[in-house]
């Protein structure tokens, strides 16, 4: 081979290599939560953003989706490996601390505070810095059968039976109340009354359905009960406070209900889907469940047995008030983003009122302030309740956004389900949880 031919070949190879190496055009890649309403909402938001005249071709948004199974583990591995496959990634309240080392704080639009409110913005904060836009909020509702409760409230004989049952199981005579006035004891008494194992005349097989599978998300559903009695993960000095009367009360209430048969025997393997199926069968009177279930449980098409007679309110109250555990999904900035400026611009826009309304109108679940939510109230009445409950009753436990928050929920799931299933005592469960949390949150 002559030198000239070698040179020519080399030049061609270099040209091909440079063509392959250069991207067709720069873009902002957004990694979203696949399937479900979040994906539909994100697609609509991205389309709106890309159609804006002031967004250059270099900064158009492209979407990327992993499978839901193992999503957070895969994201963790990708972020830790310094992936540049996405510029903006999904973020959850309980995982901010875990991903924060691989992400950058973001600056939201000037409208963000008036669109979401301080309480909701905290779901995307870690160590005082904002790491994302809170696009979807999850909290819990108390779903109940209004037909059953109304019948109970009208029937004197039923009220007497109710008092008898509450005295036997809770040690005090209680009267049936409307669910808006329920304390956790009222909820427990109602659940027992509507349980055939306790009250053979009950129209439903079970009074409630508890999600007791050893799963971190089930612990989120549980937290609002002890929280109403003043529970927190740790005090301001960082001391773990889980071995408390408040947690004791919550754990004992669940165990009493499970042991009495007020929740299906297989509840220890139940999570979101199983609980919904149980409630939708018409054999359950009330349950605490994620707000996302509203569209399913309150629809006569999707849940013919209960859709028209189901109401959703905030979870019951305790001595410290009424609480609902909130956590958000949102979008933050990958530290290794290839198009960081484009990503920042998209995140800023995503926190604007325009984006929030597009997101809300397309199945998303942003918790919006009363002024903003009125603009979509006709199309999304559920968002009115979401925003109201988040503002009034929403809370995040101390340490709930820390790097080990997920591990804390995992630990609680293991220890608490161990107690509920009768494999260990309450004292051991609380002692083990406190010790584990001390190691995790030190």
């Amino acid at each position, binding site marked *: 081979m002559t030198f000239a031919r070698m040179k020519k070949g080399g030049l061609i190879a270099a040209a091909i290599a440079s063509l392959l190496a250069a991207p067709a055009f720069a873009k902002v890649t957004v990694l979203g939560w696949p399937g479900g309403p979040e994906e539909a909402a994100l697609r609509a938001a991205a389309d709106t953003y890309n159609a804006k005249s002031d967004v250059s071709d270099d900064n158009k948004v492209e979407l990327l989706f992993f499978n839901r199974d193992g999503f957070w583990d895969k994201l963790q591995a990708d972020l*830790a490996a310094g992936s540049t496959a996405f510029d903006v990634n999904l973020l959850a309240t309980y995982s901010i601390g875990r991903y924060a080392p691989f992400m950058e704080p973001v600056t939201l639009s000037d409208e963000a505070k008036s669109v979401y409110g301080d309480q909701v913005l905290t779901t995307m904060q870690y160590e005082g810095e904002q790491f994302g836009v809170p696009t979807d909020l999850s909290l819990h509702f108390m779903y109940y059968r209004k037909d059953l409760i109304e019948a109970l409230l009208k029937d004197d004989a039923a009220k007497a039976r109710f008092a008898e049952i509450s005295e036997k199981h809770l040690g005090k005579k209680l009267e049936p109340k409307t669910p808006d006035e329920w304390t956790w004891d009222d909820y427990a008494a109602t659940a027992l009354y509507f349980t055939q194992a306790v009250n053979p005349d009950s129209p439903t097989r079970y009074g409630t359905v508890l999600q007791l599978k050893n799963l971190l998300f089930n612990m989120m559903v549980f937290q609002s009960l002890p929280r109403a009695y003043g529970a927190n993960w740790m005090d301001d000095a960082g001391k773990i406070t889980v071995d408390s009367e408040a947690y004791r009360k919550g754990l004992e209430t669940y165990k009493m209900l499970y042991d009495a048969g007020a929740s299906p025997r297989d509840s220890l393997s139940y999570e979101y889907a199983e609980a919904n199926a149980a409630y939708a069968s018409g054999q359950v009177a009330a349950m605490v469940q994620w707000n996302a279930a509203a569209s399913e449980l309150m629809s006569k098409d999707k849940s013919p047995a209960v859709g028209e007679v189901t109401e959703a309110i905030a979870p019951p109250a305790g001595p410290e008030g009424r609480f609902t555990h909130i956590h958000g999904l949102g979008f933050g900035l990958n530290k290794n983003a290839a198009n960081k400026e484009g990503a920042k611009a998209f995140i800023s826009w995503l926190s604007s009122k325009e984006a929030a309304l597009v997101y809300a109108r397309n199945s998303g679940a942003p918790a919006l302030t009363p002024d903003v939510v009125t603009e979509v109230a006709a199309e999304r009445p559920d968002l009115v309740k979401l925003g109201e409950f988040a503002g009034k009753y929403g809370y995040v436990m101390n340490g709930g956004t820390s790097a080990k928050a997920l591990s804390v929920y995992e630990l609680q799931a*293991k220890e608490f*389900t161990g107690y509920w299933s009768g494999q260990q005592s309450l004292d051991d469960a609380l002692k083990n949880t406190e010790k584990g949390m001390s190691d995790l949150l030190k």
Partner: protein
Amino acid sequence: MTTKTHRSPVSEFRLLTIPLVVFLLVFLGFPAIVNLVYSVSEVSFETLRRPEITGFGNFAAVWSDAAFWRASWFSFRFGLLTAVLECALGLFLAIFLAPLLERRSWLMAILMLPLMVAPALVGLMYRLVLHEFAGPVPYYLWAWFGASLSFLGPGSAFWTLIVVETLQWTPFAFLLFYMAYQAIPREIIEASSMDGARYHHRLWYIELPLMTPTIVVALLIRFIDGFRVFDNVYVLTGSGPGGSTASLSIYIYEAFFKQGAIGKAVAASVILFAASFAVLYGLNAIAARRKGATR
């Protein structure tokens, strides 16, 4: 004039094995070394590239962790019980159905169907089938008896998992045994019949001894598969209330991903590797001794 180079068979062998050696070094050796380093290090997702070697603390943590021993005991019991049940059922079916299958070989395809389903999907399927309000089994139990069993409750979850695993993998054992049964020379069977051997004598003194090597291999394969179970158990019950249905694989997975205790998870897998190696080495030694004794 050309010179022809002759290589010895040994050097040719070495040359040809280079790709395999490189493959093993890259895909097995490197991860093994990394794992050994992680097992004696303080390491997290943030420090994967710069683990801090801290000694044998991870091994001590695993060794003193009641959950590790509980998971080991679960895996051992699960592996042993499912292996025995699958082999017993597979053997029974292989012998019982052999005459039928000789005439209707297409039935084999139906019997093999459970093997075609991914274990995670099997878990998902039974999660639905056994659900009190959506599943057909509890539905009919309620309809006929006014009550239903708690299939996945604390007292029954283990046995439900055993049944699910056995139903899926019995066809595998059946396939091996059927092939071994078919391979028994017909002349031996005919000769024993002519000598007046009855059916159970033939089974006990001729067929089963001839099938013994296959039975041992099937038991071993099924035990290993059952011991390392993950998919269907994880989908059906997770690690169970209080970790009661956590197998060793689930224990390691949860330590690694859920707790972020990478060093501890890797230390557990190193202990598992060492234990497996010791058991297999022991079995190999016993087999070699028996082979020597029969010569």
